[in-house]
Structure formats: structure tokens, C-alpha cells
């Protein structure tokens, strides 16, 4: 039986980062991290305001309000002290020996300790304190006024014809893949990436421009005078502008997504459509390792990006030959898989070679799938009794499957195996406390390592033989578009808030720089951790001036020591600032799913939506205060 397919180039999704799950985002650790970060910032702002004259307003309050504010201020003191200590700590490298090792930018609550809870409570108090005026404002907000301003922003962008030039440009770029030759196997990937790349660049630029220009233009032309002299809460202006700009960009996004989708569905060749125009629905298990240095992470082969754990081939140990193993455990399996004749399993592994391999020859692996009802001894007896038992019968009766022949795979190429549906029927039976299914992978070659992560192996929940599925593909395409919408929301909100105080150009530049930094977080992290080539920023500037290569150590002079010590401070500051960068990188990955024909996980997208909203909230609060404190008119 030929159940093995290799090098399936149509689908080569290789996740470099785990998709998010709701329990992670809503976990205690994430909540503590949020409260400590945002609360820390809030307490610092609250106390600065208090010292700058806010105390007069606090003492002018009466009764419960004054008591509540004073209580929240007192509760915010611990997190304020932590803030101060953190700020002071940024400069500690200056007072440490030059060769002292500093663990830069360790996440504050990687593993929450008991001390974090009172601090997080203090952070919560600080957040409540700074949000109280905003919350008190909410009953006074009028949807009619907010929508009036939103409608105005919408009309303004349409009638000022800001969009037209950009949309024209975008339409040309959208069809750019006509001019980019691609192999049939890459066709859909190329189409999807061109469409999304063009939409992302142009829409984010237009959205940021619209958000950055509205309020400063109103202030410059003094049109804002007429709005703020009406019974309009300042935050209504901010919300109205945000809703208006987002409504317009949503409309544009829907139109462009529909145009792009039609273009792809009509333009893609029948072969590519048959293979890629779908949305695979993977069923993931939980990965664990056996006979490796770590049960959770396998062996470490020294790759900088520690996403995958590795297993080696059989090794000799004191107790005999040991075969390291990676197991995917499936606590349950959906019953729909049991009704199928065949269920496709797909996998993409990494090879870490310790000896030179052969051209066009992959690495051999062992693949065994067992259910909770599997009894090896009973199966052995049955096989002895009837050697002609088919794999389907063994799967059905004994909960066991092993592909016929040798299984080899190539580096980062997706392989697939057809599994009898009967195996899943067997897995549905038995003790529900035991895991329904376990997939065991071993490396057959002793001099090679195979790297794998949780999402590198999955069963196809959708029907792998269904051919083109344009509707599922279209839904997936729109989900990726929703991720772009979240990015637009992020950029527009941040730029809009900046524009309440800064000019159009400065707001736009700052918004774009923030997004760029967020996109190169990996690099920022490397810089913070001191892993970047040529040292920190100051050292690199020195190297540029001296024209010296990055690999050469700096000479041991007083100036160079000062530069390197100062770089450590810069890294500490960068590390602190990096905590405030949004996670846009995750949002940019969805077109990869679509292009490779994988369904976008609803939970992953929901997590990103939650993260985006919680990132925006403090920004909107900042915008509320900036507009509230701002004198709209100037001296003339």
C-alpha cells in the first residue's frame, strides 16, 4: 500500500512561533504582566500629575471621591516604587565591572511569583485611578455625536480625494503577480502574498495618513473651535475620528479583499486551484519528548531560534541502545475522522545534520500511531495467527498503524501519510481518561537530528481529497483580511492619539517608527540581549567611524570601555521600551496560512484581537488626557 507522499510543495506551512490560545492570553501570567506594565506606567503618570499641581484638585474634591482618590494613590505607591527601582536599575551597568553579565529584558512575569500579586494589585489601583475620569465621562458620551464626527471624518476623506490616488496605485499593485513569473506550485502563494503585501503597505500608509492629518488640520484651520464650543466631550472627538477613519478603511479593505479574492480565484491555474485553493483544518496534538535531555524541549542543537526541540538517532548508553522519541498526544479526536476511509497526516520537520548527507536523499524516520486501546501483545498474537491481516484491520482491531516501508523526509518539505479512518474509530472507544491517540516519531539515522515543534505534525480534519474548496478558501482569505484590519486599527489608533498633540508629519513618522520597531522586535531583542554583531548601537557607530569589522574585538581603551558600558545602558533602556511595542508580527503571518491553504485558527485570531484591543486601550486613555488638557486655541 502506498500511503506515503513526500515533498508536497503545494502546502509548506512552517510555523516559527506557536499560535496563541485563549488560555495563554487570559492566563494569570499574562494578566499580571499587563497589570504590572500598564499599571507601572499609570502610577508614574498619576504621581507626576499629583506633584505638578494635581494635589490641589484632589484636595478640592469632597467626601467619598476624595477618599477614593487618596486610597487609590496610596495603593499605587508599591508599583511606583518598583517603577523607580526599575528606572534606577537601567543605569546599573555604569556601576558594574565591564565584564559583568547582565540578563537584559527578562520578561517580568515569565513565571509569576507570589510577590507579583500584590504588585499587580497596586498596578490595578493605578490603572483604576487614571481611568476614573474617563469612566466618569462615559455616561455623558452620546452615540449621536460620536457618529456625527465619524460621519464627518468619512466624508472628509472621500471628498478631499485622499483615497483616490492611493487606491489607484493599489489596483495596479494588486495585479502585480501578472508580472511576477512563478511555478505552478508557488502560484497561489505568490498571488496571495502580492495581494496582501500591496494591501498592507498601501492601506496602513493611507490609514495612518488619514488618522494623522484629521485633528491637526482641524486645529490649524480652527474648525475644531466650532466643535469644542458645542456640548461635545473631547473624547467623543477622538472616538468619532477613530470610528470614521476605521469605517472608511474597513470599506476599502472589504472592497479590495473582494477584488483580490476574485482575481485570485479566477486567475489561478486549475492545478494550483485543485491543490491549494482550500483551507486545511489541522488537528494538533501535544508534543513531548522521551529519552532526550528535556521532556518538554527535546535536545538542544544550538540553534539560535529555540522553537524546535530535536531528537537524535539511536544512541548507545550505559543501559543499552536508547532511541529518543517525539510523541504527539491527542487527548481526544473528532468523531468525523472515524467516518472517513482515509485521514491524511502531514508533517514538516527540520534536519540538523552532524554528518554530510547525500544529494536528493532525505532522513529516515520511524512513525508509529497507537490508540489508547492498543495492546502490543494481543496484536502480536493476532498477527502470528493471521499474517495476512491488513493495516486497516490492525488499525481497527488493535489501534495500531505504521506506514509500510521506510519513511524519509526532506528539510522543511511537507510530507504526508494516509492513515486508515478505522484507527480513529478505535481511538473513540475505551477509557476516556487515557489519551485517545499517540503519534511516535523516531530518527532512524544515528548521525542526524530531527527538529520538531508542536505544530509540525497534524491530521487533516478537512477532507484531503475534496479538491478545490473556493468557499473555505474565501472565508480564510477574509480572516487574513481581518488580521490586516486589526493592524489598521492599531496603526490608526496610535497615530490618531499622537496627532492630538503633535503635527501631522511628526505623528505619522512616530506611528510608522513604532510599527517598524514592532516588526523588527527580533532584532531589537537581539540588540537588547547583546547578541547583535558588532556590539550595541554606540559601539557600532564607533566601528563605522573607525571602519573596523564587527568581528574584531574593540581595543581595551578608556573610551571603548565607556562606549561599551553606555551601550549596556542603551540596551537596558531599549529593553524597557520594547515592552511597550505591539505584537504586530503575529498579525502579519496570516497570509502565509492562506497562501499555503491552511485554515486560520479562530482562537489564534481571537487572541490577537484581544491583544490588539488591550494594547490600544492605554493609548486611547492617553488620547483622552491629551485632548482634555489641551487648550484648543492659541495666543492669537
Amino acid at each position: 500500500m502506498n500511503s506515503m507522499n513526500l515533498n508536497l510543495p503545494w502546502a509548506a506551512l512552517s510555523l516559527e512561533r506557536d499560535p496563541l490560545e485563549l488560555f495563554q492570553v487570559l492566563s494569570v501570567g499574562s494578566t499580571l504582566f499587563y497589570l504590572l506594565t500598564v499599571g507601572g506606567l499609570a502610577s508614574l503618570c498619576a504621581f507626576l500629575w499629583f506633584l505638578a499641581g494635581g494635589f490641589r484638585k484632589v484636595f478640592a474634591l469632597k467626601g467619598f471621591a476624595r477618599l477614593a482618590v487618596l486610597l487609590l494613590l496610596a495603593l499605587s505607591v508599591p508599583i511606583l516604587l518598583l517603577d523607580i527601582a526599575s528606572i534606577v536599575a537601567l543605569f546599573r551597568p555604569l556601576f558594574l565591572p565591564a565584564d559583568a553579565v547582565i540578563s537584559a529584558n527578562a520578561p517580568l512575569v515569565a513565571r509569576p511569583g507570589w510577590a507579583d500579586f500584590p504588585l499587580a494589585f497596586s498596578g490595578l489601583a493605578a490603572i483604576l485611578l487614571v481611568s476614573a475620569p474617563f469612566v466618569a465621562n462615559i455616561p455623558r458620551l452620546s452615540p449621536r455625536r460620536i457618529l456625527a464626527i465619524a460621519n464627518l471624518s468619512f466624508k472628509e476623506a472621500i471628498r478631499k480625494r485622499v483615497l483616490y490616488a492611493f487606491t489607484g496605485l493599489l489596483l495596479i499593485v494588486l495585479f502585480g503577480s501578472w508580472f511576477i513569473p512563478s511555478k505552478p506550485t508557488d502560484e497561489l502563494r505568490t498571488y496571495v502574498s502580492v495581494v496582501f503585501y500591496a494591501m498592507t503597505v498601501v492601506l496602513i500608509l493611507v490609514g495612518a495618513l488619514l488618522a494623522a492629518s484629521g485633528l491637526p488640520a482641524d486645529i490649524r484651520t480652527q474648525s475644531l473651535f466650532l466643535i469644542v464650543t458645542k456640548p461635545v466631550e473631547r473624547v467623543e472627538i477622538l472616538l468619532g475620528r477613530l470610528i470614521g477613519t476605521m469605517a472608511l478603511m474597513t470599506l476599502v479593505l472589504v472592497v479590495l479583499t473582494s477584488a483580490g479574492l476574485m482575481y485570485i480565484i479566477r486567475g489561478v491555474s486549475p492545478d494550483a486551484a485543485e491543490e491549494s485553493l482550500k483551507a486545511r483544518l489541522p488537528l494538533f496534538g501535544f508534543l513531548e519528548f522521551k529519552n532526550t535531555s528535556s521532556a518538554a524541549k527535546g535536545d538542544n542543537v544550538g540553534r539560535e531560534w529555540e522553537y524546535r526541540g530535536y531528537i537524535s538517532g539511536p544512541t548507545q548508553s550505559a543501559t543499552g541502545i536508547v532511541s529518543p522519541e517525539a510523541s504527539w498526544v491527542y487527548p481526544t479526536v473528532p468523531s468525523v475522522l472515524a467516518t472517513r476511509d482515509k485521514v491524511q497526516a502531514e508533517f514538516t520537520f527540520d534536519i540538523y545534520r552532524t554528518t554530510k548527507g547525500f544529494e536528493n536523499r532525505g532522513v529516515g524516520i520511524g512513525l508509529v500511531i497507537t490508540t489508547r486501546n492498543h495492546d502490543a501483545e494481543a496484536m502480536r498474537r493476532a498477527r502470528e495467527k493471521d499474517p495476512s491481516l491488513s493495516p486497516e484491520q490492525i488499525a481497527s482491531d488493535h489501534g495500531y498503524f505504521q506506514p509500510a516501508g521506510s519513511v524519509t523526509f526532506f528539510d522543511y518539505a511537507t510530507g504526508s501519510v494516509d492513515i486508515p479512518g478505522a484507527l480513529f474509530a478505535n481511538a473513540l472507544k475505551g477509557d476516556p481518561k487515557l489519551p485517545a491517540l499517540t503519534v511516535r516519531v523516531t530518527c532512524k539515522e544515528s548521525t542526524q537530528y530531527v527538529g520538531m515543534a508542536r505544530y509540525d505534525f497534524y491530521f487533516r480534519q478537512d477532507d484531503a481529497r475534496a479538491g478545490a474548496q473556493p468557499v473555505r478558501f474565501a472565508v480564510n482569505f477574509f480572516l487574513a483580511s481581518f488580521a490586516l484590519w486589526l493592524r489598521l486599527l492599531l496603526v490608526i489608533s496610535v497615530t490618531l492619539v499622537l496627532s492630538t498633540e503633535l503635527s501631522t508629519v511628526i505623528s505619522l513618522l512616530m506611528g510608522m517608527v513604532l510599527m517598524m520597531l514592532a516588526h523588527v522586535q527580533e532584532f531589537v531583542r537581539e540588540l537588547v540581549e547583546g547578541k547583535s554583531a558588532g556590539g550595541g548601537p554606540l559601539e557600532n557607530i564607533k566601528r563605522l567611524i573607525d571602519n573596523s569589522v564587527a568581528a574584531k574585538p574593540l581595543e581595551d581603551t578608556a573610551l571603548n570601555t565607556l562606549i561599551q558600558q553606555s551601550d549596556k545602558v542603551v540596551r537596558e533602556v531599549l529593553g524597557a521600551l520594547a515592552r511597550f511595542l505591539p505584537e504586530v508580527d503575529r498579525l502579519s503571518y496570516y497570509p502565509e496560512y492562506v497562501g499555503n491553504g491552511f485554515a486560520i485558527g479562530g482562537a489564534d485570531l481571537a487572541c490577537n484581537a484581544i491583544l490588539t484591543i488591550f494594547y490600544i486601550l492605554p493609548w486611547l486613555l492617553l488620547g483622552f488626557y491629551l485632548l482634555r488638557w489641551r487648550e484648543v486655541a492659541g495666543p492669537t
Partner: protein
Amino acid sequence: MSNVKVVETRKLTKIFLDFWGRKKKTALRALDIHVDEGEIFGLLGPNGSGKTTTIKLLLGLLYPSEGEAFVLGKPTTDVKKNEYIGYLPEESYLYRFLNAEETLDFYGRLFDIEPRVRRKRAAELIERVGLERDKKRQLREYSKGMRQRIGLAQALINNPKLVILDEPTSGLDPLGAYWMKDLIRSLRNEGKTVIMCSHRLEDVQDICDRIAILHEGDLQAYGKVSTLLQDADRLELRASNIRLSDALKRDLEAVVKAHGGTLDAFGHPTTTLEDYFLKVVAESKARPGRRFLADDTAVQSR
């Protein structure tokens, strides 16, 4: 006019600071005034005297450095006071990509007015300011006078108790200025309070009940126009149905001298140029096609 104080300022001071918080300019110093319900109050002063700053402080566009101000009994920082205020700025800061109807609808929505009431009021105001024929044109196509009219309409969309007008007749032709003054008077007749600041002193004199004169941020004069302008050292005599003659002059000199005064001048009074201009335009409208030649003879050309 009643004794209800619509606006009251107490030691109202505005100091502008630079980026570093250093004092840049004192725009207004300890202003103490009040405006009564139903009056037209004028703020006068040369450029930089603090009149626009006062208006911006009353509207909440600026925040007081010291002192306080109340509008309709509420602090100027209270947004709720704006429900009863109509404001026409010096320049028309309206959105030029909207037409007249959309403009009034937009500002009406900011007052949270019901759609039906909003539409009715907008239609009435468009008619009142004479823009019915142009209500569908975008404001970018409007002349200065038309923009001032729609600006006034937006200031009245909420049927305000207090109307604040910054240079309402600035940039208007005499007909427009006359129309504006007439409308301001009608607002007073409807019981509204009006505060206006203007450089055109004749306009202020024409329509204001009381004024305040500011100079370099200080209040210099404050009171009823008629009282402030009264010259107690001089006497004005007006008579009708009488012609100038030497005998009359001699008699008048004798009477004035007998009471210890001196006759400075006497003659026929002159009207204001504005009145004369309005009379000419009115006559021209009454007789279309009539024009004057250089020798001051009228001809009917059409």
C-alpha cells in the same frame, strides 16, 4: 433686559507660557465684568487687547491662568454650558467640503438634537439667512458673506440663550453688515443675550447696549454706551422745519452767550455714509435701469 447675569468673570487672567513654562505674555489681567440677560454687549479694543482671549476663555477654548468665569452659572470648563451657547468665530471655520444643509445637520447632531427637529430647524435657519437657493452647494464655493451667513445659522441651530459673535461684520459689504446688525437686534428682541467684539466702532455704537474697552489686557472702560459716549461739557440742539440764516445764528449766539456758553458751530446735520449707501441701493432697487451721469443727471438706460 433683566438683572440675571448670563456671563460673569472674576479676576479673570490669562497668561501664556512658553514650552518651558516661562511667562510669555499676559493677554488678560484680572477682568471683572458681567453681561446681563437680554442685552447686546460689546467688547472693544485694538489688536492684542485681549478681547478674543476673553471670548475664548468664556467658550472654554482656553483655560484661565487665574480667576474664574461663569457662563449661565456654570464654570467655563463645564461642557454642559455649551448647550445654551451659539458661537460665530471671526473667520468661518466651517468644513468647506460640506454643503449648507449638511453643515447645519452636523452641528445639530453635536447638540444631540432629534433628526426631525434638526431638519425643521435647519430649513428655517437656511431661509432666515437667505441661503435657500445655495443650500446644496459646498461651502468652498461660497463667498465670504455667504459663509458668514451659514456660520451664523450654525450658531443658532440650538436656539441658544447666549450668542457670542467675534467680528460678525468683518469682511462683509455694507448690505451684509446691515443685514447682520439687523439680525443681531432681532436676536435681542427674541430675548437672547449677545456678546460681540468688533473693530467697527460704528457697528458697536449702533447696536450695543453696554461695552467694555480693553487695552493690553486691562479693562479701560465699562458701561452703557449712551453713558460712556455722553459729553457733559457740550450741548446738542436739534430742530426741524427751519432754514439756516444769519439772523438765526445771531439769535442762537446771543442765547448761548446769555447762559455762559459759546456757540461752536451750527448747520445742517449729515447722515452716516452707511445710511446714505443703503438709501442709494434701496432707490436703485426701486428703479432698475436708472443710472447717473457725471453732471449728476439721472438717465433711464433700460
